[in-house]
């Protein structure tokens, strides 16, 4: 399985297991270490107290000989190889407990007065041992002070037993803790993922049609997502309604010319006019189809759209138009601002500019001027496009006729091409405006297209 497609549950469980193992492992190790240290210290105390017991029960003879207590501080000193051994060394004195007879143990050191030494674990023939040694000087009345070193050695049998018990208890409890933590985690996970399952269920219900939109009560983290899904559903629904309306518009608007033709066919008396009627209605139907096609192909205003450079589109279009109108030798001049961009669909821009430029080429005498300017805005820059020609110009009454504002495709006045009406509609879709004025630079008509900036 690729890591990227791993389920959320698997991700959380996997990372929790890694964290738990690391955490519990380190905890167990640290606790064991601490327990061992304190057990060893405890052993040292015990060995030291054996030395003190020997000391308190001992005496030195006038001859300088050490007399040890009759009863050992611990019966184990008297049992051979019992694991607890004692020895004294100093001057001519050399003694070891009955338990240590015949064993080679670290009893050789002689320490200075009040010097104390604890070593271990050390491996010896008697096993692994810990040794406590202490140097003293025995004050003998009227005699030489007697330097002595006491050694107590114990093997690790007792310590090992302690450690084993501790270790078992520790790991049993750590395992119980781990199981509990994982259980809590899985429950929390299930609980946290519940809203996601709900989104999934609700989207399925929307698909089946038993739900309109996602509810508004999702956790904050999911709200951006659910809002986006709702926006998407809304726009898709709106698009579907728009398409249905367009289909309806198209079908209905074709009915009128069809009715006219049928009527003409059913009145043979006026057959002379038939050809004229049919050709007129065919032209009308062609206009209607072209208009609705252009509407169906447009993307329209969107909140998020990449900028399209006007100059690229303009150059392509002018290249084509100069080819088509080659016979008339029309010169198209550019005054393009390099940062002028159109925020929308490239095809829409091409449709707008194509129709306006084509119109200018048709009416121009010799020259066409295309200028663009960017209108600065805080969130998004606006755009102003001007297309001017040196033709005869257009008067106000004609403008209304050309643009056919607010008139539906099937109700348009006859006699004008449909291109500029399409342009006007498209610009409105982008919340822009189209104005037709007189060109001051060239003297003909000037089409001024303005797309507002976003602030």
């Amino acid at each position, binding site marked *: 399985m690729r890591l990227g497609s791993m389920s959320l549950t698997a991700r959380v469980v996997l990372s929790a297991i890694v964290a738990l193992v690391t955490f519990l492992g380190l905890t167990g190790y640290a606790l064991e270490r601490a327990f061992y240290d304190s057990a060893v210290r405890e052993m040292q105390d015990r060995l030291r107290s054996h030395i003190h017991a020997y000391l308190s029960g001992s005496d030195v003879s006038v001859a300088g000989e050490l007399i040890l207590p009759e009863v050992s501080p611990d019966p184990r000193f008297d049992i051979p190889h019992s694991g607890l051994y004692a020895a004294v060394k100093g001057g001519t004195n050399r003694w070891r407990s009955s338990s240590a007879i015949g064993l080679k143990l670290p009893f050789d050191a002689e320490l200075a007065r009040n010097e104390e030494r604890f070593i271990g674990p050390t491996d010896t023939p008697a096993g692994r041992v810990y040794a406590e040694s202490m140097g003293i000087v025995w004050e003998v009345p009227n005699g030489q002070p007697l330097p002595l070193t006491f050694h107590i050695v114990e093997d690790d049998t007792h310590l090992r037993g302690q450690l084993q018990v501790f270790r078992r208890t520790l790991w049993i409890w750590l395992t119980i803790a781990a199981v509990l933590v994982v259980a809590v985690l899985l429950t929390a996970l299930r609980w946290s993922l519940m809203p996601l399952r709900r989104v999934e269920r609700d989207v399925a219900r929307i698909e089946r049609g038993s739900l309109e939109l996602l509810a508004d009560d999702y956790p904050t983290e999911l709200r951006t997502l659910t809002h986006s899904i709702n926006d998407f559903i809304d726009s898709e629904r709106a698009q579907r309604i728009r398409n249905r309306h367009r289909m309806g518009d198209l079908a209905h608007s074709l009915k009128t010319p069809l009715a006219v033709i049928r009527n003409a066919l059913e009145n043979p008396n006026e057959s002379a006019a038939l050809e004229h009627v049919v050709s007129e209605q065919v032209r009308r139907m062609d206009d209607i189809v*072209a208009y609705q096609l252009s509407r169906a192909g447009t993307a329209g205003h969107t909140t998020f759209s990449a900028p399209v450079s006007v100059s690229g589109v303009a150059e392509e279009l002018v290249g084509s138009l100069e080819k088509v109108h080659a016979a008339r030798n029309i010169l198209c001049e550019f005054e393009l601002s390099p940062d002028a961009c159109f925020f929308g669909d490239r095809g829409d821009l091409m449709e707008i500019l194509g129709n306006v430029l084509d119109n200018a080429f048709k009416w121009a005498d010799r020259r066409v001027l295309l200028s663009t300017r960017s209108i600065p805005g805080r969130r998004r820059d606006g755009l102003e496009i001007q297309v001017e020609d040196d033709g005869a110009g257009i008067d106000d009454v004609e403008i209304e006729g050309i643009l056919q504002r607010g008139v539906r495709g099937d109700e348009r006045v006859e006699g004008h091409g449909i291109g500029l009406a399409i342009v006007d509609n498209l610009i409105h879709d982008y919340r822009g405006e189209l104005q037709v004025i007189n060109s001051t630079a060239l003297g003909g008509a000037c089409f001024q297209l303005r797309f507002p900036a976003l602030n």
Partner: protein
Amino acid sequence: MRILLVEDEAPLRETLAARLRREGYAVDAAADGEEGLYLGREVPFDVAIIDLGLPKMSGMELITTLREEGARYPVLILTARTSWQDKVEGLKTGADDYLVKPFHVEELLARLNALVRRATGWSKPVLECGPMVLDTTAQTVTVNAKAIDLTSYEYKVLEYLMLHAGELVSKADLTEHIYQQDFDRDSNVLEVFIGRLRRKLDPDGEIKPIETVRGRGYRFAIPRTE
């Protein structure tokens, strides 16, 4: 004028071809892109009409291939697509003009006329060579401002010669560009036409517009005024 017409819609192709022939064009029609490419390679056309949506090979591909192989004659594209994006793309592949379906045949004829003129270097629809004026739009001829009455074929021969004024036009060129394929090329009909044209245009033998280049063909001898 010899025209290549590539259109898959049979009724449109047939009515268009019939109309173009009535207008005096020699028409070779093809129903798909591959047939169009074959004809386009074999025949020296004066102009081509190519539909963009074709079976076997799209119109765009056909134009691109013809242009790559060196075809220089003007191409007019027919398209049902109205968007500027499509028009610009079509013109970029090497077409010279476009016409959106449905269209008026008169519009098509005017565009063809203009394309052929432009390709032969005439910018205006009226060809002027000295005292002779040929109006390609009205299809009329005047000599010293006096209208000359010509038959359709005579007009076509004269138009072809005047479009190529100053150039040598072989008999083969003339027959290929003026007549349908089934025309009998061995007959001396062409010579008869030229003879009749000379008598009609220049009854007194003063301006001598059409020159015979022995064994090679004809040349329109009066230089262009335009």
